[in-house]
């Protein structure tokens, strides 16, 4: 079961819950997030970040990757990415990969 109230940090390994779907909308030519009774239109950067949210990568790794790609200060990227992911998490559109209990 998806955990709620997650606090996104650099060590988080976020992923989209099963019921939240990132999809390219062919009709409108935009990426959308489909969630219960919601359609969100993430901006380009958000889409890029969401594609990295596979439950394996940590936020720190995503930030490293983006900082390198855009040759931008790591700190600024980290702040933006965490804020964006936290916002999605608060709305219930993002969850964290659970440690395997096996």
């Amino acid at each position: 079961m998806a955990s709620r109230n997650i606090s996104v940090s650099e060590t988080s390994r976020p992923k989209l819950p099963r019921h939240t779907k990132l999809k390219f909308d062919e009709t409108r030519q935009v990426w959308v997030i489909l969630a219960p009774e919601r359609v969100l239109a993430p901006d380009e950067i958000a889409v890029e970040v969401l594609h990295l949210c596979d439950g394996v990568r940590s936020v720190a790794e995503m930030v490293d990757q983006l900082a390198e790609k855009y040759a931008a200060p790591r700190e600024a990227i980290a702040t933006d990415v965490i804020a964006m992911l936290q916002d999605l998490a608060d709305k219930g559109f993002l969850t964290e990969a659970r440690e395997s209990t096996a």
Partner: protein
Amino acid sequence: MSDTLADNKTTTAGPTDGLAVLEQTRSAAETHGIPLAVLLEITHRCPLQCPYCSNPVELDRGSTELTTEEWKKVLSELAELGVLQVHFSGGEPTARKDIVELVQHATDVGLYSNLITSAVLLTKDKLSALADAGLSHVQISFQGNEPMVADRVAGLKDAHRKKLEVAKWTRELDMPLTVNAVMHRQNLHQLPDIIQMAVDLDADRLEVANVQYYGWALKNRAALMPTVEQIEETSRIVEEAQVRLKGTLAIDYVVPDYYALRPKKCMGGWGRQFFNISPAGKVLPCHAAESITGLEFLSVRSNHSIAWIWQNSEAFNRYRGTGWMPEPCKSCEFREVDYGGCRCQAFALTGDAGNTDPACALSPRHEEIFKQAERESAGSQNRFLYRNFAGGTLETDQHQGERQEKPHGA
């Protein structure tokens, strides 16, 4: 009327018009793109008899319902059009034996599906089959937080217990759960407990939806209309809970528009971002639209495509945009904010769907209608007219006697 009420808006409206996120980024003048979500009322049959049912008073009989193949064709056509989500609703959508097949087809053609259900017909196996078929979200209606009030409002014994059970299964199957609580004078006192119930059920979302008064609810207005004080208290409770439960439970709140100064932007504007399909296949601008006489609504069984009906049919164009508006809407600065309110309500209360919605303080009928509602809210007429195919059945004394407490003492 207090300032707090005047400031209230429907943060997100019900299942029907809460999907405007993409549209909100566009100009209001850009009118009718393809809706993001479509409401499919696949049957009007329902084991519940809620006196505020949003179905029309003239219900579609089972024999007129679209067949499985017809619904599948509709789903394929919607996906092709660019619709992203469908809401399987009713009546009770699981009263149709082909519900799993229809959800599977929605998934196959790439649609995101929501189930809006009373839950009382669901078994664990059926729910599990729906999840396997790709169902992404379950919304269960609740009529109260305990059986005494809830089963009486639903007009069905044991309904509440069953709903709790299905809600639990929903979460066990890892599907997101929305608790839909329809509120009115006779259950508003339970709101804090309903909020707690939603938390205990591990729901993701709670819709606190005050009854909207058309169709069945209009017939039952005297028994359902809350007092202004109740609504003020409700707003306080909801606002407090929204802050307290941030990140745990999202709460959407719909105020009854009788107590607002501005009308609601019903359906996001007629024919602007929403349509629904009735059990018999009519493509409608709103689930109550058939209550407006004199408009001809085309069916998916006609020779026209859904896209054609949406874009070109007379019924959709009749109240689209702002060109149809009379005064005071015509010159009103809010005309593209609320699009004149609700056409069905204007028709039901004034006899002309082209009038300003009387919920608006600028309507010449507002004062009179608000006063009447206020009188009704303070009255003691608590007997329900239950919704059914026979045009409604009045609640018996036996039903009423089952209540333990005076329900609108809150």
